């Protein structure tokens, strides 16, 4: 199978992954105890109203009919229901919030992998020093610290101390000028650059710094560990010994010969961390008032609007399916063995 065939094959599999994940979401939402209608409408609603709402939402139908209706409305109509109070389509709300979550996820991934690789490579290079121990302790602490607590500590230290913005995606003034831009994609960095507003782009990056750092540090521990383990393993093998014997400098041996060995384990880890990234994003967005899907979920919880929570969970299933597609394709690009 060539690279092109592999990508096509993987693309063809994605609807199946999505279908399985949506089935899972449906199963958990409908089969567990708890009634979506009383969650949507509140507990002190007369029985007739409850019954009417149930019929409106199709919840009076048999389970398998509900299941096909759910799949049909999500996959074909892109319909995720309406909010309880204002009756706004949930899909519209999510569409306006999705770019912010993607921005944060990308930035945090860059921080996580960058920081992790740096720590891992340094640990492998200075194997005999105190550094590997330090990196190990770092990984354990980072694993044990709730991401919102880390965020609050960074808000207090780097935010209040060093003057970095601690809340929102943009300063209020720039938020207004963003609204009136002729070309809009929803991605602030893209919009501000397309429309030639470098000042807004910089303001955005300033606001992005702390949330991205928070989520990135939170995820960096495992990347440090994976990098260290694979690089240090490579450093004991014949091909690195041969490289050293040829007089290549140690740093170059580590980065050119050892680090290449870490690429595939790193990719595997990146795929496994997608779930942690999305979950962590909900808490990070809440901590920093970052107006993404995660903050929407928090608002949904506060307003007791279950349609929002349910819609967002569905969208997260779609995101998981898409990102696993990207990771799999990246696999094939990096590792020729994948495409036999």
């Amino acid at each position, binding site marked *: 199978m060539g690279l092109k065939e592999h990508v096509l094959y993987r693309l063809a599999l994605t609807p199946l992954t999505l279908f399985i994940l949506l089935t899972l979401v449906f199963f958990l939402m409908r089969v567990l105890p708890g009634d979506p209608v009383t969650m949507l409408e509140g507990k002190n609603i007369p029985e007739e109203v409850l019954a009417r709402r149930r019929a409106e939402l199709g919840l009076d139908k048999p389970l398998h009919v509900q299941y096909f209706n759910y799949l049909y409305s999500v996959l074909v109509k892109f319909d995720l229901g309406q909010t309880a109070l204002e009756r706004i389509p949930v899909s519209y709300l999510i569409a306006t919030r999705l770019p912010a979550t993607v921005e944060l996820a990308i930035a945090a991934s860059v921080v996580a992998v960058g920081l992790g690789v740096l720590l891992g490579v340094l640990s492998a290079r200075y194997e005999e020093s105190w550094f590997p121990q330090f990196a190990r302790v770092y990984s354990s602490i980072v694993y044990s610290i709730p991401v919102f607590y880390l965020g609050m500590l960074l808000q207090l230290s780097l935010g209040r101390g060093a003057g970095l913005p601690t809340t929102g995606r943009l300063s209020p003034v720039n938020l207004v000028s963003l609204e009136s831009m002729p070309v809009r994609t929803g991605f602030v960095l893209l919009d501000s650059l397309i429309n030639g507003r470098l000042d807004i782009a910089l303001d955005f990056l300033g606001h992005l710094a702390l949330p991205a750092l928070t989520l990135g540090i939170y995820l960096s521990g495992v990347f440090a560990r994976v990098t260290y383990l694979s690089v240090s393993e490579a450093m004991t093998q014949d091909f690195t010994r041969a490289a050293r014997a040829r007089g290549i400098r140690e740093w170059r041996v580590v980065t050119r010969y050892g680090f290449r060995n870490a690429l595939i384990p790193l990719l595997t880890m990146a795929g496994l961390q997608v*779930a942690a990234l999305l979950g962590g994003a909900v808490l990070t967005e809440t901590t920093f008032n970052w107006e993404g899907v995660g903050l929407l979920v928090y608002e949904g919880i506060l307003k007791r609007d279950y349609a929002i929570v349910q819609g967002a969970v569905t969208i997260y299933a779609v995101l998981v399916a898409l990102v696993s597609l990207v990771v799999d394709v990246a696999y094939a690009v990096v590792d020729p063995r994948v495409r036999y």
Partner: protein
Amino acid sequence: MRGPRGFPEWGLLVGGVITAAFLVLAVVGSSLVGERAVSSTVYVDGRAYQIPPLLPPGTTIEVGGLVLHFPLGTDQLGRDVLARVVGGARFVLTVAFFSTAISALLGTLLGLISGYIGGMLDRALSLFMDSLYAFPGLILAIAIAALLGVGVLNISLAIAVVYIPSFFRMVRGVVLSLKASPFVEAALVAGASSWSIVLKHILPNTLPQIVSLLPVTFADAIITEAGLTFLGLGIEPPTPDWGFDLNKGRQFFLAGYWWIGLFPGLMIVLSVLGFLLLGEALNDLLNPRKVEA
């Protein structure tokens, strides 16, 4: 980042001591601090006095002739931070206990059945568990907790769902590797029923791995619980809880009243570290083959 010399031993000791301390706190903490964790009112000779909010750590005040000491200060509602931090151990650790127990029981049971019976059932269950594993755990727990509402058992159930696949995959793997082994075949030939083979011959072999997974799951459940209550799910005020307190004190924390958030957060980190350390040490001791890798 290999374990330090003599790791399993000191890990077991330090992790065990921290874990034991938190478990004791969970059992006696609430009754130790009593009303002071939930109320800012003090009664002296039948007269009510309000404790002022946001007192810094180490403050001593006198109300109606009574000397009150606040080593960790008071929160935005005038409640003793130390009392809340100590009292908060009960809810989170109870939830972590129940969710770990539920996920271990269900995951083990399903893993045994799925691995032993095999066939279509095994494929369907594995597919289901794999997708459950791939799904962001916290988001899943949020959705379930929002549906189930407040209460220890509800939030425990929401968290348990997240960890069922870990136990399922591990137990199923052991079952598959043991199914064809001579001692199972011998039992089969001797006429043992499927149930007795699974329960008497296979289950005991999965126990070391289950046991070493328990503390790690417990630690993770603490973090997930903190995340859920931080988002306002599963708990009813004024029950003291670390995650919930962190969210409620957020604005004041950022305004410079650092003690409101610092201490509940430290409790989460410390308890999680304790259970993790215990888990890693147990894993090294119970599954020695994995240490070489």
